């Protein structure tokens, strides 16, 4: 099968959907001829024109609201925010409006929209352009939250997100944009709420999200050399969360390490760990659950400090060994 990048897969998913459905359009800052902050929409304004690839003023609250209002009246907007950190400015619209409209209105009206936004550190963009804030939105009933880790997944999940009748926050990891993978040319959908076992194993379950899926797979390779068999589970969507796949995996391996890039304190890993502690898998646990996440500091600028903020492959290996008393 042909290989394309994660970034190309995002663009292809949008373009194919826009060819199929007149109601789908994109709005965002500098997404026109500039092609967006990361070049995801490059070439799209040429194909679809400025009506459907709408370059907006720098007004995150205004454009989020415009997306919601248009969704409520029959469109299926895709809103691009340049950096996921900027959701702070759109937060009222997403949290108090988009997430709650259907419920507040007693089931009348729907908000079929996708907010796509790049998250994560590793680019030296420092504290206001590097965060992973998915736990904020995962906390809000009424929002779905997606974190694809591969080119294949990002295409299928984005189609599912666009087709969904609810507001979906879709996190693209900026370091993954250039990663390549096998991606079918035709349209396909990966259901929201279906985890993927990225590697099977028997000794320990590593639940990892976004770029940490790749770190976890690398760690698993290393661990295999030492005779440790790690299973890597990628939830792919935080809301809805595929609890069944995670519970089954932990029941099989009896050990759990949860790893994400977001700050560990209050991070979504705590939700996954608690979910396991409350589930039937708890009885199978042979070691305390381990959580790895970002340090409790803003993301630093210095590249070495920036790395130290985020879990590395070696941290995952260490955590796995600790759960096996082999550290």
């Amino acid at each position, binding site marked *: 099968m042909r290989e394309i990048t994660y970034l190309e897969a995002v663009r292809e998913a949008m373009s194919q959907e826009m060819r199929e459905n007149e109601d789908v359009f994109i709005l965002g800052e500098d997404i026109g001829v500039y092609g967006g902050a990361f070049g995801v929409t490059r070439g799209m304004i040429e194909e679809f024109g400025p009506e459907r690839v709408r370059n907006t003023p720098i*007004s995150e609250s205004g454009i989020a609201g415009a997306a919601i209002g248009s969704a409520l009246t029959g469109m299926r907007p895709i809103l691009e925010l340049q950096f996921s950190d900027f959701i702070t400015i759109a937060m*009222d619209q997403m949290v108090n409006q988009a997430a709650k409209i*259907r*419920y507040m209105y007693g089931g009348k009206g729907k908000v079929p929209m996708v907010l796509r936004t790049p998250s994560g550190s590793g680019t030296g963009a420092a504290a206001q352009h590097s965060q992973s804030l998915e736990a904020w939105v995962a906390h809000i009933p009424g929002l779905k939250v997606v974190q694809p880790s591969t080119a294949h997944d990002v295409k299928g999940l984005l189609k599912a997100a666009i087709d969904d009748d609810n507001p979906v926050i879709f996190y693209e990891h900026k370091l993954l944009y250039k990663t390549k993978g096998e991606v079918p040319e035709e349209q396909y959908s990966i259901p929201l709420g279906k985890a993927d076992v990225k590697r099977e194993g028997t000794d320990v379950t590593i639940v990892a999200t976004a770029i940490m899926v790749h770190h976890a797979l690398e760690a698993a390779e290393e661990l295999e050399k030492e005779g440790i068999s790690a299973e890597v589970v990628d939830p792919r969507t935080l809301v809805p969360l595929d609890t069944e796949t995670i519970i089954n995996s932990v029941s099989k391996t009896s050990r759990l390490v949860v790893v994400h890039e977001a700050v560990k304190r209050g991070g979504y890993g705590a939700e996954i760990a608690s979910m396991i502690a409350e589930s039937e898998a708890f009885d199978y646990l042979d070691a305390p659950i381990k959580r790895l996440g970002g340090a409790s500091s803003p993301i630093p600028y210095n590249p070495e400090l920036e790395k130290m903020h985020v879990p590395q492959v070696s941290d995952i290996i260490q955590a796995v060994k600790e759960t096996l008393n082999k550290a």
Partner: protein
Amino acid sequence: MKDLKVPERITEENLIELYKQMWTIRYFEEKVDQFFAKGKIHGTTHLAVGQEASAAGVCALLDKEDKITSTHRGHGHCIAKGATPDKMMAELFGRTTGYCKGKGGSMHIADVEMGNLGANGIVGGGIPLAVGSALTAQMKKLNYVTVCFFGDGATNEGSFHEAVNLAAVWNLPVIFVCENNQYGMSGSVKEMVKIEDIATRAKSYGIPGVVADGNDIIEMMNVTNEAIERAKNGEGPTLIEAKTYRWKGHSKSDAKKYRTRDEENEWREKDPIKRLKELLISESVITEEQAESLQKEALKEIEDAVAFAEEGPMPTKDDLLTDVFA
């Protein structure tokens, strides 16, 4: 009504209906006020007594296909856009027969089918939504307009600036109606805004700004009509500032220490309902007796609404988790 300058589509019948509608709004609010005082309704509410002319006057020019977004002080807008007081009252009573099945309450009444995209508990929260609704009209080439109601306080929110600018640069068919009722909770507009007229702000977005007497339903209809024509001709948004006054406090627990009783009495003299009544009688559209009987009909409508609300079933635990997702 030969001396009366009203938009062409407005008939004598319409004016008579509007007179009654303003009473419906006022009686709805007064009834809700009484229920809160007695503890018969829980939560909170924001009443629009004294502001009936802007809701009724603006919505009189709208068709079913046209949309509105409303505010925390939204009961009047709801009624004027075609909502029925029975389902509204049932909502305030928290019953499943209410517009939102008892899940929204006073601040979140919506009637999407009738083009009411919802009240809003966040000051300025509905302004960007209205712009989105107008964007749909433009993109799908639908010939509807969206009216966005908000208060003076909301014009100091960032969402106002972002949304009005966006509507202006995209030339969207939206009408921004600022109901300047002089106070954002306790904050007087004189303390919170440096300029005399909020409509002046329109200039900075390159759109027309119009000041109107918000207690004069005829003037409200005329300025709205012009704004609708502009919007439908592809000339973009208009900002209308309706100068008015809320007779009641901000919400149910307001001692109104921030304003004087003299000021309140001055504004009561400018009662929008009384003004329309005097006009309709002087123009021989109705008689004093007809006016009284219309008022009674409105009261009856509210009493019936209360009866309907009281009969409605309460939601159960099964309702808690429905409607979170579509």
